[in-house]
């Protein structure tokens, strides 16, 4: 079976610095894969080359067996890749609901004239977009619904902003979700919640998920497979236990994380 996402020998350099060095990576349908590695290992760069922010210098990226290298980011999103950002990038001065509705742009059609004339088709589409947004926001229980719909995104707490980013990515109707450190900056309770949520995303919504995470409890809790990067090179791949006990991974984390991983 063709994997949903496949990276073949992807290399990316910034000047003399090789950030990704022949990285191979596959994510199969319905799989949750975690990408780990110390700071500066090239994890976010992997997301950036997949989503088209950077073009890889070498190698190929396949979505459902089709190369997406060189496509502009918005087209890659339309083909079924949506992501969240490590440094939150919400539309802060738009309402919570609008943030999610905006992401439906790629799979909706009403153009300039139909929007100006408010044709019946356009109005139907608008209602569908609104329903979609409410449905995606309801995924997070009571946190982002009701009075929250019409609040500006900047009024949300940090944890709720992370949730809103996930809801927004969901509204783009992706096949594969790329989550960049979804638990960063969350307290232990929220971290536990996000762990359950990622599982729920696959079970109920059927997404394939590639996630970057530093919190090893989260990685352990969610991953089917773990891929470890260091200095742009893939150093280990396998189940959480396999990767966590891999000597090269322990070395990469300079022992501190390795202590935690052994427990």
């Amino acid at each position: 079976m063709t994997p949903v996402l496949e990276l073949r020998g992807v290399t990316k350099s910034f000047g003399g610095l090789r950030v990704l060095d022949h990285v191979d990576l596959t994510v199969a349908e319905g799989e949750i894969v975690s990408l780990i590695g110390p700071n500066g290992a090239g994890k976010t760069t992997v997301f950036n080359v997949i989503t088209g922010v950077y073009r890889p210098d070498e190698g190929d990226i396949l979505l459902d067996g089709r190369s997406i290298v060189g496509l502009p980011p918005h087209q890659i999103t339309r083909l079924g890749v949506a992501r969240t950002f490590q440094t939150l990038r919400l539309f802060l001065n738009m309402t919570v609901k609008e943030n999610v509705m905006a992401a439906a742009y790629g799979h909706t059609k009403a153009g300039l004239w139909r929007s100006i004339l408010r044709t019946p088709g356009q109005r139907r589409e608008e209602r569908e977009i609104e329903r979609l947004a409410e449905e995606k926001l309801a995924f997070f229980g009571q946190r982002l619904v009701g009075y929250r719909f019409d609040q500006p995104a900047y009024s949300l707490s940090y944890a709720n902003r992370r949730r809103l980013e996930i809801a927004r990515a969901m509204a783009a109707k992706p096949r594969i979700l790329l989550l960049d450190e979804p638990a960063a900056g969350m307290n232990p309770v929220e971290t536990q919640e996000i762990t359950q949520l990622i599982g729920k995303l696959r079970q109920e919504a059927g997404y394939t998920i590639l996630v970057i995470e530093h919190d090893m409890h989260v990685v352990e809790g969610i991953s089917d497979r773990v891929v470890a990067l260091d200095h742009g090179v893939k150093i280990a791949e396998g189940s959480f236990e396999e990767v966590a006990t891999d000597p090269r991974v322990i070395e990469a984390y300079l022992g501190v994380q390795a202590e935690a991983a052994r427990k």
Partner: protein
Amino acid sequence: MAEGERQRTIPRIGVDEWVATVEERVERGLAGRAREAWGRVPAGVKLASLVVVPALVPLLTQDDYLLQVAIDTVVFMLLAVGLNVAVGFAGLLDLGYVAFFGFGAYTYAMFASDHTGLHFQAPLVLLIVAVTGTALGFLVGLPSWRLVGDYLAIVTLFFLQIFSTILVNGDRLQLPFLEKEIAKLDGGLTRGPNGISNLDPMNWLGWKLTSLTQYFYLALIAFALALVALHSLNNSRIGRAWRALREEPLAAELMGMPVNWLKLLAFATGSVIAALTGTIFAAEQGAVFPSSVDVTVLITLYAMVILGGAGDLAGVAIGAIVISVALEALRTPSNASWVFYIALALTLPALVRPWRWQLVALLVGATVGFGFAVRAIVEAAWPAGTGGRPLGEASIDDWVSSWVLLQRNATPEVPTALGKTAFVALIVAVLGLTVLKGRRRLVALVPTLYLAACVWENVLVPQSAVTRYIILGALLVGMMAARPQGLLGKTRVEIV
């Protein structure tokens, strides 16, 4: 269900429902209540009132001057809502905007005047303007693919500069393939600084628009159409995408929005509105001049958008009305005095925080007392400083002439030493006000207000047609200090 159980077992720590109780900060005072009431009015009613209320103007007056002011105001409203598309909706700093106004006006002059001998009907010219204006809008929007913020601003400003240079020097301009035709024209392609006059009145399939009232309603209909179109657009997926790219262009692109295309669309939409407005304006004036395409017009339009609240359609239109009418009122010295003193009086409540009427009354009293005291002292030390007669013509100038300092033998043409000194002192005082806070600011306000009145009576009032932009600028500074988001705009947060 497990879901409900989990909800109950989660501790309340980290749950932030308190935000709901805080909500947005409630505004106080009369202005706050007025804005709150305005916020409750449905959008449709707001926009309708912006068309219906102006529509009554020709019913109330048939005075040519007032009608002309009304037409100019509607033209400004059209231009302001058009500028708001790129600037307010999409957040693109477009300084070339006014060129499109000139483009529409000159295109009408080319196709419907004795200058070229072409006498096309209005619908055809409007169609030509719409098509070429869109194309030009796309072209000028292209730099926005790679440039943002001030970089984009400077590039588009050059476009405006190039366009107005072409208009001024168009009498010597040659176009490929049209050399012979242009050589035949009297005064070259654009007739240079003289402009082109004797344009046809608009000809709608044989029905010629000749009266000011007709042009007023034509402009108003155009405004109504633009308003409805932009309101629908703002609430559609395209409007949302514009806001998204204004907020966070990278995230917008990665959420499936074609950011580059949306930028061009914003530029072109605004450009078409400006170009069509230019066409209507040219036909109404019967002449076009390069001076209507300059940076002053651009700044005035930006003032309207910013004063009204960038991004808020109704606000921007109201901003256009306020500034257009204020600029017109400031043209004649007697009106200007009233505008000046009313604005001065309004400064007080805007600067008094928290709002207390006792404090305002105290300040007014202090300012009046301060004035009489200073006058008494100056009169004793330097009698020439108070012996002058008022230069202004309004009754209010007579009233204040026994309160402010007026140098003897002052003439409208040459500012007196007193006037010049007061002017410099006023600038220093205003700058001082911006760094002072709290009680010190209130105390410093008293001499500043008095100085402002002295400067007005000694220097500005006889030349109000020239100095009106100074007054407008001062008004804007005061207003924006009190309310940075504009009259009806929403507070925007940059970084949280």
